[in-house]
């Protein structure tokens, strides 16, 4: 699933589990070679792992760090979970408002249904 969501297929990647972390106690590290994170993949990461940090490595050194960013309005990224929403019965491109990523709150722009990050279904 993660391979698809982060568009990792075809890239060389490694996973380090249970590494020590000052901030979180433990952390997992995903290393991907020659990979450029797309805007869409970054938004998915922000939903799936809001506490994650992106480290950009060039010639063996971390040159930049950032938290994955989520815009206030997610367009055609996440489905509304309300089965009665117009976006689930007609061909309407879903638009979802995102709240504070850490609290994982989302609201459909159309039907105003609120749902949590655990309920998120990607388009």
């Amino acid at each position, binding site marked *: 699933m993660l391979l698809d969501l982060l568009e990792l297929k075809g890239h060389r990647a490694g996973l380090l589990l249970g590494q020590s972390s000052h901030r979180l106690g433990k952390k997992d590290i995903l290393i991907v070679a020659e990979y450029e994170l797309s805007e869409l993949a970054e938004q998915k990461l922000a939903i799936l792992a809001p506490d994650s940090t992106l480290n950009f490595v060039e010639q063996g050194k971390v040159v930049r760090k950032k938290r994955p960013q989520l815009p206030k309005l997610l367009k055609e990224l996440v489905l509304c979970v309300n089965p009665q929403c117009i*976006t689930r019965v007609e061909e309407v491109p879903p638009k979802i408002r995102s709240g504070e990523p850490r609290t994982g709150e989302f609201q459909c722009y159309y039907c105003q249904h609120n749902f949590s990050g655990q309920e998120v279904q990607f388009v």
Partner: protein
Amino acid sequence: MPRSNVRNTPYRMKLTGSRSAKLSVKSLVSILDLNEADIDLLLRRADAPSPHGSLQGKQVALLFYENSTRTYNSFQTAVHQLNGTVCGFSGVEGTSVLKGESLHDTIKMFENYADLIVLRHPNDGAARWAADISSVPVINAGDGQNEHPTQTLLDLFAIKKTQGRLDNLKVALVGDLKYGRTVRSLSQALSLYPGNTLYLVNPPFLPLPEPLKQWLREKGVKIEERGSLEEVMSLADICYVTRIQKERMSGVDEFLRVEDSYRLTRRHLTGVKANLKVLHPLPRVKEIAVEVDSTPYAHYFAQARGGVQVRRALLELIAGRGD
């Protein structure tokens, strides 16, 4: 036989505030599309004499995917009072909808025929979608369980009429607070005004949704959850009762067990404030006993009478020719 004076007597009330003559929005989808000045303008205009001819030469499409008695007819009457014409449908029998036409395509068709679209649709969010794709203004006449802003405007009209204000009120919300769209919209509208308190009286399985409660608290609304009508009736200025819909119950037995606990009777009206008014969006089933109708507190039929006035004001301000 002369026509009833009561029926022909429109609400008259004194309103204060902004005298701006335009709404800040092109369409009305959610009550939260409106600000305090918009609501003030609408209620003031609803209380003014009907400006005949404001919709002269204009056509309003009434697209009602679900049958509706009060809302459809009050919109139709309001258009006629403004000398406009109507097209559209009430119920999808015999329309292209039954052939599978999408809401998108229906809206794109009717925007060619009408200067304004009034939409009732069974799906949540349909009105926002319609407003986004339509080249003419859209008024939401109810979208699924989501919103019914014109009902809220007439609720506010009744509250303002009977209490003289929309702030510093104690409002009991009674019945189905989980699925009732009128409750959601009214509570949101009351959050625009300072000092309001909401008493929530609902079966345990039909609570006001937690995110909405949280949102209302953040807006400064005081929320108190009360277990029974007895606890709130002596405190309330407004008792807003809603129908508990059996089809929403997981089991009918569950509903029958609690039904009488949320039924307003004359017994509840002893020791209440003199200014208390009981409102209901109608239709009523059993949640207000008929014996309440003859008390000075019953205001639900008068409340419904404001429906044409409020909708006429809205049509005039959105699609009318101005003063």
